[in-house]
């Protein structure tokens, strides 16, 4: 494939440089570079966690330290030998993975904030270092472990191995991050809750990424200690973790190459400068960090790439194709939503109380009511099992119990948010591909050139004009197109039940008409049950098959379009004309 020739040449060139370099450099620089390479590998893991997944982590140093200490403890206690090497690697991987899994469990749960995850990542190295300090001769306390026999390699060989290891890690990271899987991680960073409502278990995904990056970091630490024949508490410390973040920030987050450059430059420069000017050196690093964060948030490489990219348009083109049709609807009139005695309270304040209704497939049900009536709250309670205070909800016959949205979505529910919720830095095609994660697991190392969509999503894409802009970033779309994109994403889930919160707000007349057509087709032809929150009574009247009126947290009316539109209650609510309360059905 011709497009791969240039990267392949670059990699080959880099490999050649790494193999030749040790012959040209003096021993001191080679020493520094070996360490710098291992540090750079750890920096790549920080970049993946932060630049791609959006979690600012200070804790990768802990895993680095775990790797270093696994080697040091094993070689100190049992001597150096083949089985010890494998046992040490095994221990490094196992312990790092276990600690990462626990950290991940603490950091990532439905509703956790990025700030909280950052704070946890701070605590991990601090706790680990205290454990190392109090470990006595087993961990060597503050002095660390030294004096064990380690790998016997020439320093030039070390540099070649470390350099190739770094190159391999960087290439692997780049390939994966640019693959469909990598785009899924970016989607996670852009909009976690949208991912959740696309049926993706974001917490688990984040934990998996953390565990993998922890393992890589631990291996880097393992060889770092193997090279220096020292494991020290600093290798696991919060300060080192912060340094890794600084390297990534300066180099350019989310670029893999930037952090590598950042790590190598800082390590080498500090080796030459910090020995003689420790305080001034740190001052420079601190100032550089502030300036880069303020002026070049995407780091130096990011700034350069922006300059280079300017004027160059995306070259990739994505080809649409229909997805293999899902199994035909078995029972086109089945119960789609069943709500029983639903209540939602904040303390003593009841936002929803005793709401009860049933909706069937093929229905286009509108939910109306004044602001503050609880419409959006009701939508939330239908799609997230943990929201409601009392009552039961079943989607397509499945009780949603206390399940999080990503599980409810798998019962066949799709929810479109009020404000267009898409993945801003992803292209249209990538957004849709993320939405298809459940059906087409994303490729780990490659990017698909085709995009398979179910008919409903396909028709939205084609009718809205998104089809011509598949390779454009979502943030460049108009408001209306973003709304259409989000709808197409939700429809890519092939839902049985579609929840829409004011989908037409801010749309032009033509867009609105297009929306109406799409929705009616979905209900009639594809037998979806659509529940629509809408302000515009005319729009509601035009497309609904049934209307539910919510007033002050209670279900005030449930009937056909004519019944509701002409009811006294609706006129009272919407125009202020007085009606006696006796007429209001309970």
């Amino acid at each position, binding site marked *: 494939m011709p497009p791969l020739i240039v990267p392949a040449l670059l990699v080959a060139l880099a490999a050649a440089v790494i193999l030749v370099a040790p012959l040209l450099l003096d021993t001191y620089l080679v020493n520094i570079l070996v*360490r710098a390479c291992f540090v750079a590998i750890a920096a790549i893991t920080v970049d993946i966690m932060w630049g791609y997944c959006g979690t600012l982590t200070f804790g990768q140093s802990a895993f680095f330290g775990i790797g270093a200490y696994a080697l040091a403890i094993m070689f100190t206690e049992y001597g150096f030998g083949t089985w010890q090497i494998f046992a040490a690697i095994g221990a490094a991987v196992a312990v790092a993975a276990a600690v990462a899994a626990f950290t991940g469990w603490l950091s990532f749960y439905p509703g956790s904030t990025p700030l909280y995850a950052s704070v946890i990542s701070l605590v991990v190295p601090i706790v680990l270092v205290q454990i190392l300090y109090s470990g006595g001769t087993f961990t060597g306390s503050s002095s660390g472990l030294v004096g064990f026999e380690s790998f016997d390699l*020439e320093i030039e060989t070390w540099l070649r191995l470390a350099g190739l290891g770094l190159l391999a890690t960087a290439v692997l990271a780049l390939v994966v991050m640019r693959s469909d899987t990598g785009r899924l991680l970016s989607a996670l960073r852009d909009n976690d809750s949208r991912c959740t409502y696309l049926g993706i278990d974001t917490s688990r995904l984040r934990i998996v990424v953390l565990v993998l990056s922890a393992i890589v970091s631990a291996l880097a630490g393992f060889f770092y200690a193997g090279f220096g024949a020292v494991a020290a508490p600093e290798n696991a410390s919060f300060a080192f973790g912060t340094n890794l973040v600084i390297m990534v920030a300066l180099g350019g987050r989310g670029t893999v190459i930037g952090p590598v450059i950042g790590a190598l430059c800082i390590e080498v420069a500090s*080796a030459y400068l910090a020995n003689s000017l420790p305080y001034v050196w740190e001052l420079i690093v601190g100032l550089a960090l502030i300036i880069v964060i303020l002026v070049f948030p995407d780091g130096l490489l990011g700034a350069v790439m922006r300059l280079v990219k300017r004027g160059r348009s995306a070259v990739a083109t994505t080809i649409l194709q229909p997805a293999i049709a899902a199994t035909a609807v078995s029972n086109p009139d089945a119960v789609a939503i069943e709500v029983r005695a639903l209540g939602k309270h904040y303390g003593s304040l009841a936002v929803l109380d005793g709401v009860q209704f049933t909706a069937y497939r093929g229905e286009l049900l509108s939910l109306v009511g004044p602001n503050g009536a609880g419409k959006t709250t009701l939508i939330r309670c239908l799609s997230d099992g943990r929201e409601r205070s009392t009552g039961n909800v079943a989607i397509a016959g499945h009780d949603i119990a206390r399940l999080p949205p990503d599980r409810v979505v798998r019962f066949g529910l799709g929810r479109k948010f009020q404000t267009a919720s898409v993945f801003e830095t992803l292209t249209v095609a990538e957004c849709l591909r993320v939405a298809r994660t459940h059906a087409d697991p994303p490729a780990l190392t490659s990017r698909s050139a085709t995009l398979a969509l179910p008919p409903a999503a396909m028709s939205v894409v084609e009718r809205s004009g998104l089809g011509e802009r598949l390779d454009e970033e979502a943030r460049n779309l108009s408001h209306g197109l973003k709304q259409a994109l989000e709808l197409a994403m939700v429809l890519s889930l092939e839902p049985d039940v579609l929840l829409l919160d004011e989908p037409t707000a801010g749309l032009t007349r033509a867009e609105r008409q297009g929306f109406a057509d799409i929705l009616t087709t979905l209900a009639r032809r594809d037998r979806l049950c659509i529940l629509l929150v809408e302000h515009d009574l005319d729009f509601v009247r035009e497309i609904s098959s049934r209307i539910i009126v919510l007033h002050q947290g209670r279900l005030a009316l449930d009937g056909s379009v004519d019944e509701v539109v002409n009811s006294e209650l609706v006129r009272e609510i919407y125009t202020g004309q007085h009606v006696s309360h006796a007429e209001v059905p309970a």
Partner: protein
Amino acid sequence: MNSRLLTTSLALALAATTLSPAFAADPIKIGVPVGLSGANSVVAPSVVQSAELAVEEINAKGGVLGRKLELEVADDASGAAGAQKAFDALIFQKKVNVLISMETSAARNAGLPIVARGKTPYIYTSFYEGKSCSPYLYVNAWVPDQQVPPIVDYFNKEKKAKNYFLIGSDYAFGRGMLAFTKMYIEKTGGKVVGEEYLPMDGSDWTSIISKLKASGADALITSTAGGAPNVTLTKQLRAAGVSLPYGNLAVDEGTAKGMGADAAGIYLSASYVTGIDTPANKTFLASMAKKFGAELKTPNDLSVPQYEAVYAYKAAVEKAGSTDQDKVLKALAEVSVDGPRGTIKMDKQRHAPLTMYLGQVQPDGSVKVIQSFKDVDPGAQCPGKS
């Protein structure tokens, strides 16, 4: 086996550079990896100063074997990671002939494998917890076996202390010192009623002090990290009204002075105090004062061994007749130096017998010598090797 292969190949590589024909004008380089930043940054400047004085004095008298001495100072950030870089830089970049330095145990330990790779003699000039053993390492400062007995013996005898409470920072030095102290107390018939540690950067000693007060101890011995932990512990002890006999294994004169009234009454044990009444010490202090004037950092138990170690290296090179590393390493055990601390010879498993002083901090911050113990043996620090 394999490591030998590595070292020989490295040595060959080095031989090509370091053993190239040396002109008499070529200076002899002394590497000083030291904690310019981090925990040791407070005391490091005084260490560098005393090394500078020694070099200046020696150069003024014609150098060593007709060659000038030159100092190469590098920051080890007081820790292992920084030490690796500093040792790498000194040994492989600056290609120094010898390393002479006061460092944390972490930094020393991290440097040792690099020292071995470079086959460079290394004179360690900081007191430490003992038992560091490497063919390249010489130590001219005290170890617990030398420092602790004066205090404990004095407390046993003069203060009739039976029950000791030990407080330390949780790191190699703190734990190592107190482990020996505990062993020694129990050997001499006393009892340790409490032993508590705080993390190295900890500064809130509240609950430990409460435990101390509740323990019924009649003497206290502490071994914290230098600087902040030591200061905060002393201040908080005084604030809590603790007035037991208080032996501090980590305090030096300068710190005691800075702490003001809070330090008064503390017992310390050292191989050097400024008040040593010998001509050598007086000359040394005068030279320091003359050279550095207002910039002078008070000489102390860490900087004086550094000064003497430079002279020890000079003597060893002269005895060996060259800077050849094997010969110098052998000679270091055989030469003795007359310095501010008296005559010092590193002939006990590469450690040195030292005269120890038991002192007490006075209200004005000065240290009054109560007793001195001549040529205390360092004990077996490197058993099985000579």
